[in-house]
C-alpha cells in the first residue's frame, strides 16, 4: 500500500455579521468604554445582553449601564494560550458577574498565576487601546481591590452605532484523502489515470472515492482507464475567473475516459471553442511538473458514436 498522502489545509473566512439593536448597543458601548446590560421583564439584568429573554423568549430592549467592575463566579487557569485567545501569556478564563448584573460574562483575567485567582475575587475591565465595537474591546479583566465603580446611567443611545462585526476565523487541518484517493493521486503522479471497479455493478469510478454509491460496497479492483476519452457534454465559459490565467471563451467539458464508468471534467484546448462537440475524441495534455492534465485536446480520430457514451452523460 502506498504511503498515506497528507497536505495542510487552511480553512479561513472573515465572517461578516449584522447586529440586532441590543447587540449593537452593547458593542458600541464597549467602544465607548461603557458596559450595557438589558433588563428582563422580571427585572433581572443580563450581561452580556441578548435580544430575547432566555426564559420567556420575550423581546427585551430596556438597556441599562452596569459597572466595569465585578466578581468572578468561576475560573479556569490556562497555562498555554491558544491562537486567537485574548492574551498570549498564561491567564485565567473567568465568568464575571459585573456589579449591577445578574448574569456573568466570559472573558480572560490577567493574573500572575493560579494562586492569585479564586471564585469570588474582585476584578475590573481592562480596556483595549484600539476599540472597534467588538467583545475584544475588553482586552481582559484584571484584579481589582475596591468597591463597585460608579456608572453614568447610560441608556444605550449612541451616535454612529456599530451595526456589524467582521469576525475572522481560521482553522488549520491536515488533509488526508484516504485509501482510494491516495491510490488515484499516486497513479496520476505517473501520468496514469487509475479508477476502481465496483465488485457488484462493475462500474469503474474515476476518481474513486472508496465506495460505490449505487451499491454501497467498497471498491478495490484498480483499473487503468484512458488516456483517451470522449466529450460527453460541455459548456462555453465566457467570464474570466479571478486568478485564472486562461483566455475566454474556452470550453469546459465532461470527458468519459475510455474504460471509465463516469465522466470527469476538464478544459478542452487545441481547437476553436465553437468547434467543440459532443462525441469529440480527446487526449490529455500534461505540462511540466503538473499533477493533473492541464487540458484535453482533440486526437483527430472520428467522433464517437452517440450510443457509445449516452449512458455516461
Amino acid at each position, binding site marked *: 500500500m502506498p504511503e498515506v498522502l497528507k497536505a495542510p*489545509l487552511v480553512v479561513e473566512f472573515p465572517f461578516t455579521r449584522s447586529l440586532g439593536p441590543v447587540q449593537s448597543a452593547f458593542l458600541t458601548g464597549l467602544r465607548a468604554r461603557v458596559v450595557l446590560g438589558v433588563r428582563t421583564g422580571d427585572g433581572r439584568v443580563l450581561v452580556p445582553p441578548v435580544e430575547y429573554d432566555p426564559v420567556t423568549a420575550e423581546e427585551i430592549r430596556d438597556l441599562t449601564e452596569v459597572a466595569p467592575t465585578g466578581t468572578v463566579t*468561576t475560573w479556569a*487557569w490556562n497555562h498555554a494560550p*491558544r491562537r486567537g485567545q485574548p492574551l498570549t501569556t498564561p491567564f485565567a478564563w473567568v*465568568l464575571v458577574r459585573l456589579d449591577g448584573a445578574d448574569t*456573568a460574562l466570559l472573558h480572560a483575567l490577567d493574573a500572575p498565576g493560579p494562586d492569585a485567582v479564586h471564585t469570588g475575587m474582585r476584578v475590573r475591565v481592562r480596556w483595549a487601546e484600539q476599540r472597534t465595537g467588538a467583545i475584544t474591546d475588553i482586552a481582559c479583566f484584571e484584579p481589582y481591590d475596591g468597591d463597585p465603580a460608579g456608572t453614568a446611567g447610560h441608556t444605550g443611545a449612541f451616535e454612529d452605532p456599530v451595526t456589524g462585526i467582521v469576525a475572522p476565523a481560521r*482553522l488549520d487541518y491536515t*488533509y488526508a484523502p*484516504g485509501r*482510494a484517493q491516495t491510490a488515484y493521486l499516486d497513479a496520476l503522479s505517473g501520468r496514469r489515470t487509475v479508477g476502481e471497479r465496483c465488485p457488484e455493478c462493475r462500474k469503474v469510478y474515476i476518481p474513486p472515492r472508496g465506495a460505490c454509491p449505487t451499491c454501497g460496497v467498497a471498491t478495490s479492483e484498480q483499473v487503468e482507464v484512458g488516456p483517451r476519452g470522449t466529450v460527453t457534454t460541455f459548456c462555453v465559459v465566457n467570464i474570466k475567473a479571478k486568478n485564472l490565467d486562461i483566455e475566454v471563451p474556452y470550453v469546459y467539458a465532461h470527458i468519459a475516459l475510455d474504460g471509465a464508468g463516469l465522466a470527469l471534467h476538464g478544459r478542452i484546448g487545441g481547437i476553436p471553442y465553437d468547434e467543440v462537440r459532443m462525441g469529440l475524441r480527446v487526449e490529455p495534455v500534461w505540462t511540466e511538473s503538473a499533477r493533473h492534465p492541464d487540458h484535453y485536446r482533440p486526437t483527430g480520430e472520428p467522433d464517437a458514436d452517440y450510443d457509445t457514451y449516452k449512458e455516461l452523460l
Partner: protein
Amino acid sequence: MTSAPPHREIAVVAFAQTVHRRISDELSEVEMLMPVLHEVLDRTGLKTADIDFTCSGSSDYLAGRAFSFTLALDGVGAWPPISESHVEMDGAWALYEAWTKLLTGDADTALVYAYGKSSPGPVRDVLTRQLDPYYVAPLWPDSVALAALQAQALIDTGAADEPALAAVAARNRENAAANPHAQLRHRVPQGDYLVRPLRTGDCPPIGDGAAAVILAAGDRARALCARPAWIRGIDHRIEAHGLGVRDLTDSPSTRLAAERAGAFARPVDTAELHAPFTAQEIVLRRALRLGDDVTVNPSGGALAAHPIMAAGLIRLGEAAARIHRGASDRALAHATSGPCLQQNLVAVLEGEPR
C-alpha cells in the same frame, strides 16, 4: 402539555461501531464508516433496500471537509433514491428523528449512523465555532477551557474535588477494559493540568470513529432481534446559549428530558452517560438521581472513546446492546451536545421479561 402516547413500539435492534482510534488518516470518512454500516445490516440480515428511512449525524467542521456527509452516503448505497435525512448534530439526534419517523407509521425500519474524524483538525479550536459568534467565539475559548470553568464551579459547591474527578476517570477507563472498541482501555495517569482544574485524565481522548444502529417497529423488531431494546421514552431539551446565564453545576435540561422520557418512573439498572469530561458525569448523576446500585458506563463511556458526533449515539447503542445480550432489563442512555452540557437527550430502553 404532555406528549401524546406513542402509537407504536419502537426498538433498537442492532448496533455496530468502529474500533475508535487516535488517527485514521489512511481512511476517508466513507472508508471508515462503511464497514460499520455493513456490520449493523448483517446483524439483522437486512439490506439497504429493506431500510425505510436513513438518518445520519456528522459535522464537516471536524475534518474540514465540505459536504462530507454526502460522500459518506456513498457507503449506504443510496440507489434507487432512498428516504434520507442528516443532522449536523450527534447521531443521537439522528436517532431521535428516525424514532419520530417510525412513530408516524411512514417507516418500519430505520438505519441511523454517525461518524467523526477529529484527527485532521485542532478539535479544541474547531469546537469554538459552535459558540455565540458575537460575544464568545471571537475569544476562541476552547472546549477544555469551558469544561474547566464548569468543573471549577462544581468544585466550588463542594460536590467534587480533584480526587473525585480522578476516580470518575479511573472507573470509566477500567470499565473499558471489557470493551474492544474503546480507545483507552485501561486506567491512565491523571497527568498535568490541561486547563486547571482539568488534567489530561479528566478529558476524553481525541479520536476518529463511527457507529450505527437499526431501529424497527413492533413485530418487525421482534423478527429482527431476539431481545429488542424497546425505546420506552426519549426526549431532548436545551438550555440558554449564554454560559453565564446557566447554573453550570446542574443540568436541568437533562432532568427534564429524563422526566419526559419516563426515566424516573422506575429505577434503571444501567446508565450510559455521555460525559466527555469527568466533572460532567457528576453533574449528570445528580440530575438523573442515579444511585450507587446503577451500573454507569459499563462501556467506559466518553472518557474511553470520544468520536465526536458519534459518541452520543454510541451511548444509545451500548445501552441497547446490553439489553440485547441480557445484561440489562432497563437502561438509561444519555447524549449531550454543545458546551458544558448545553443540550441533552435521554432515552429509556427496556428488554421484555426473560
